[in-house]
């Protein structure tokens, strides 16, 4: 890992241990450093704790020990809604929109975080960014297709103009063509200056848009490197890119 100055680090975890049950840590001592503007990819086999790690950062999973730092503040004990106000936005894998509300209401709910006078303007910005959402804004979110729903979830997260956007497997369950669109959107959002942390199973496509990748295995960081070269790594190849069976995991 290339040493970076603290000022450039926008999100970090220090020896983070977390999990749903007190006696069952899933994330086991992860040190993460995300630099401003970068696109970080989190990889790992099923059950490696990637999802739990990002949920912990979002405030949804209890922290057993360690710390979560964001923009110079310690978020470890902060409730989820304040992390959002602090500029840390999270898009869960499932149940990521309010299905009983319209698209517009979904965005209104998220915009409540902003000062009253900025709400309408910010929603208009997002409609400009995602014209499909503007067209369908009176539709209940429960009626949207998988891709549209994902788009709404991302738009909802972007309402607060976050410094860091974290996404948990946004491509899960989507058709390949739609996945391409989602990834293109993410790339554009990152290019506009939003630091992005992405959990993905769709390894090849994700490595193509990320700057750096981290491989988690059994709740610990196993590998870390440049996204372009990591694709050539033997362990990564064994875990993901080679044959379908995963000897390293199967032996456990």
């Amino acid at each position: 890992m290339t040493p970076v100055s603290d000022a450039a680090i926008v999100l970090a975890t220090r020896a983070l241990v977390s999990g749903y049950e007190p006696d069952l840590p899933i994330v086991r001592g992860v040190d993460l450093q995300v630099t401003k503007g970068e696109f970080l990819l989190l990889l790992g086999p099923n059950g490696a704790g990637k999802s739990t790690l990002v949920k912990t950062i979002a405030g949804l999973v209890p922290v057993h020990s360690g710390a979560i730092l964001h923009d110079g503040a310690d978020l470890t004990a902060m409730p989820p809604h304040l992390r959002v106000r602090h500029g840390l936005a999270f898009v869960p894998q499932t149940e990521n929109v309010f299905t009983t509300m319209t698209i517009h209401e979904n965005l209104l709910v998220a915009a409540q975080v902003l000062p009253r006078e900025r709400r309408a303007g910010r929603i208009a910005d997002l409609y400009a960014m995602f014209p499909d959402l503007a067209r369908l804004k009176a539709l209940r979110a429960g009626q949207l297709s998988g891709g549209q729903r994902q788009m709404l979830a991302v738009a909802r997260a972007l309402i607060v103009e976050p410094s860091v956007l974290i996404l948990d497997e946004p491509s899960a369950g989507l058709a390949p063509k739609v996945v391409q669109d989602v990834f293109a959107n993410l790339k554009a959002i990152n290019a506009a200056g939003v630091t992005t942390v992405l959990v993905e199973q769709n390894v090849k496509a994700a490595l193509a848009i990320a700057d750096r990748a981290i491989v988690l295995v059994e709740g610990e960081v196993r590998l870390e490197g440049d996204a372009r070269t990591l694709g050539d790594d033997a362990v990564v190849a064994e875990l993901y890119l080679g044959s379908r069976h995963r000897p390293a995991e199967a032996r456990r």
Partner: protein
Amino acid sequence: MTPQVLMDGLVAGAMIGLGAIGITLTYSILRFSNFAHGEFLSWGAYLVLAVASGLGFLAGGPASPLGPFSFGWTLPVALVAGIALTAALALVVDALLFGPLRHRGSAVIILVMASFGAALTLRSLLEFIFTSKPMYFTSALQIARPLGGGLRATPDQLLALGLAAILVVAIHLLLTRTAIGRSMRAVSENRQLAGIAGIDVRMVIRTVWIFGAGLACVAGVMSGLLVQIRPQMGLDLLLPLFAAAILGGIGSVPGAMIAGLIVGLAEAMTVQLVGAEWRAAVAFVILVAILLLRPRGLFGRPE
């Protein structure tokens, strides 16, 4: 059957509806049936009675009746204070009991059981403080006035109906048109997502307790004004409240009020046709029917 049955049923039903709104709101946000909700009605009535008596004492004697109503100025003033006090009581119970259980991730049924224990404690405390002797807001007697069409009502009854109507419309508009209403709907659908969408879930939960307990206080005072105040009144109303909340469809405010009116009317008709001793069975019969025929209620969404 006389038209009077209609009036009695509507008045009782409005009161049940207000209580049921509280149940349906706490249920849709907190996801459990609160068996202690009936006690908020009783506590509301007693708290208002205590404040009103205190005010009357300070003013040097009971206030003279306001206009056509049976009560003086102390009651409306005490009602405002009572709403605040009942809301505070609900917040205290939540902070001491439900909150810790919620944070621990306890199952729904543990919360139901805790509410059961809280109901027992709250009711017996009332009995200890005020004894089980019935009490009244006023000793003035009211004469029902003809309204035309054979319908008669006391001014108090008409006031209760009017107040219930205003409160239902207000709560409904608040839920559908305002930011706090949207937040409540968001938390009701998905509490985790609401948190990461920036909603302060704890604030929403507090708001729901305040609304639920405040409405319960109003319903309790209505019941006390039209009938009497007893420590058991909340327990006796609990089944009609649950029946109305389920009949109306959990989460639906207008549904809870309409269902409350249905339960009230059915009770009044039963008293007329079958006998007053069977009134308490009506809510159970309605409950069984709705669970058999349409468990999601009249206006509820399928689970």
